[in-house]
């Protein structure tokens, strides 16, 4: 028997698979197609203080090995979340993580404060890839601003774990990772989508009504994997802050790659659209892999990647 359990900054998960925010709604939608009890944790769609209609359609477009989305944070808003979704989340057979987005520090703080008292919520994941209404600059790409936001949110979330989800659209992701940790993040999620574009060559217009959108899916996996490895080795390992790896995970082999690179847990997004049972299949694949390799605890694999120039390790998984 292998031990797939994960200790995510004190939060216990039965296995490392999670959903990516925005790809799995508020959990009820997939109930017929996914074994929710088989998830390590469930992450909701981003919630904002006010209800949002989101961008005009077309909101998605398929590209090679992935897709672009410009949903525009369409969500039910805090009030309806509390009234309509929380009762559903109370029945979830796995820990629930609420993803929170906003366009000002106040937005984030108010929404997060409401989460602090909810028994059915184990942690909050901050989506910081949104532009600030005040100056249009994204929270997640400026270390100073990210540290302040994280600290402000942590102040109102004493009872919950705080996860900060990093944007990959930065030059040095270790700088924003460090800022989040300094601000009080207890875990890091990486990565969010890459800003990208597709063009309708006949209409000569972007295929997304919004112009640009976020690239997700297997296409981004090699970049996401590198960023996880970089943050793990550059910041997170020494700080003892666990990483939730995501970006293009579709098969169990992808999950193993992220774990070896330094992720304590993995989240699956776009691949759910191809097969909602992906997390369950990844758990099965991981189990078999560990059995064959004689690895008993998944935690022994976290960051076990040997990079060129590394000191040879004493034990195979040390």
């Amino acid at each position, binding site marked *: 028997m292998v031990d797939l359990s994960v200790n995510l900054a004190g939060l216990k998960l039965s296995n490392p698979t999670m959903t990516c925010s925005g790809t799995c709604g508020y959990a009820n939608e997939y109930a017929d197609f996914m074994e929710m009890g088989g998830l390590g944790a469930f992450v909701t769609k981003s919630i904002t203080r006010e209800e*949002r209609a989101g961008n005009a359609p077309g*909101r998605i477009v398929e590209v090679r090995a992935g897709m672009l989305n410009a949903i525009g944070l*369409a969500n039910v808003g805090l009030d309806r979340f509390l009234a309509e979704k929380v009762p559903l989340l109370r029945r979830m057979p796995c820990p629930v993580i609420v993803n929170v987005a906003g366009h000002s520090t106040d937005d984030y703080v108010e929404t997060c404060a409401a989460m602090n008292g909810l028994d059915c919520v184990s942690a909050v994941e901050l989506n910081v890839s949104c532009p600030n209404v005040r100056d249009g600059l994204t929270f997640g790409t400026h270390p100073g601003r990210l540290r302040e936001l994280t600290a402000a949110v942590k102040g109102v979330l004493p009872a919950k774990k705080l996860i900060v989800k990093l944007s990959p659209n930065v030059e040095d992701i270790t700088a924003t990772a460090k800022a989040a940790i300094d601000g009080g993040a207890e875990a890091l999620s990486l990565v969010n989508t890459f800003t990208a574009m597709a063009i309708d060559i006949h209409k000569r217009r972007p295929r997304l009504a919004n112009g640009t959108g976020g690239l997700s899916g297997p296409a981004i996996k090699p970049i996401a994997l590198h960023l996880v490895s970089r943050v793990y080795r550059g910041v997170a390992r020494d700080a003892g802050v666990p990483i939730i790896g995501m970006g293009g995970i579709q098969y169990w082999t992808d999950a193993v790659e992220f774990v070896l690179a330094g992720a304590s847990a993995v989240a699956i997004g776009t691949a759910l659209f191809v097969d909602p049972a992906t997390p369950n299949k990844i758990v099965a694949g991981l189990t078999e892999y560990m059995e064959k390799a004689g690895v008993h605890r998944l935690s022994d694999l976290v960051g076990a990647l040997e990079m060129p120039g590394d000191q040879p390790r004493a034990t195979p998984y040390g």
Partner: protein
Amino acid sequence: LPVAGRELLGPLAFLRRPFSLAGRRDLDGGGVELDLIHRRVGTGTDWMGQLAPGTTVSILGPLGNRFSLPENNGVAILVGGGVGIPPMIYLASTLVGRKAVAFSGALTQDLLPMGVTANAPRPGADAIDPLYNIDEFARFGVPAVISTDDGSYGFRGFITQALERYLDAYFTDNADRNRAVIYTCGPEAMMKRVAEIAIRRRIACQVAVERSMACGMGTCQSCVIRLKRDPARDGKAFEGKDWIYKLACTDGPVFDAEDLLW
């Protein structure tokens, strides 16, 4: 030692593709047989077109809502175009023994998306009398009106013109109109026109819309369509909008023509 390489062509599709059911039959053994009818327009539908019989494919579904049948023995009026025809066939299969009529049109006879039944009586160029001349519908006892833009078969003109002429001729009576339901699926321009016709004549109309879809289950919020806001149904207004987005995949794909802002 010569080295040869091969090209691996066409790995261009990633997401699933949405299709309407064109038919559904319970099998004796307990299984279900589903009919899909599709055009070939790209990677995914090309791939489907070349599948050998017996190949196992993975499907997720059925997803979304469905047409609701007319009440009080009203007439079901089916207006399908292009890839909107398959769901009309499925609908026809649920209409056996009811009053129904189907409309089908094309530029010219050769392009008619469905075959005309061999030796069916040939309608005139301004005929709007339904005939049992399309097999897929006749099989379920649903007669059809056919139009071609050039008049090479049936009514000369657009299918929406044939529809209007038909309604003029047969739906003068308020009671008939009140019980009838127009069903439409196909190119957006056609559906919009059908919806207009129905609304103007106060005939109920159910429209099956098409949107780009990723998840098909209401999670990704990609397939939105604009509807009139109904405070009772939709809760309090937000962002100062008098409309609301609904999801084509789960709230729809069938919407009431009255509600649609497109």
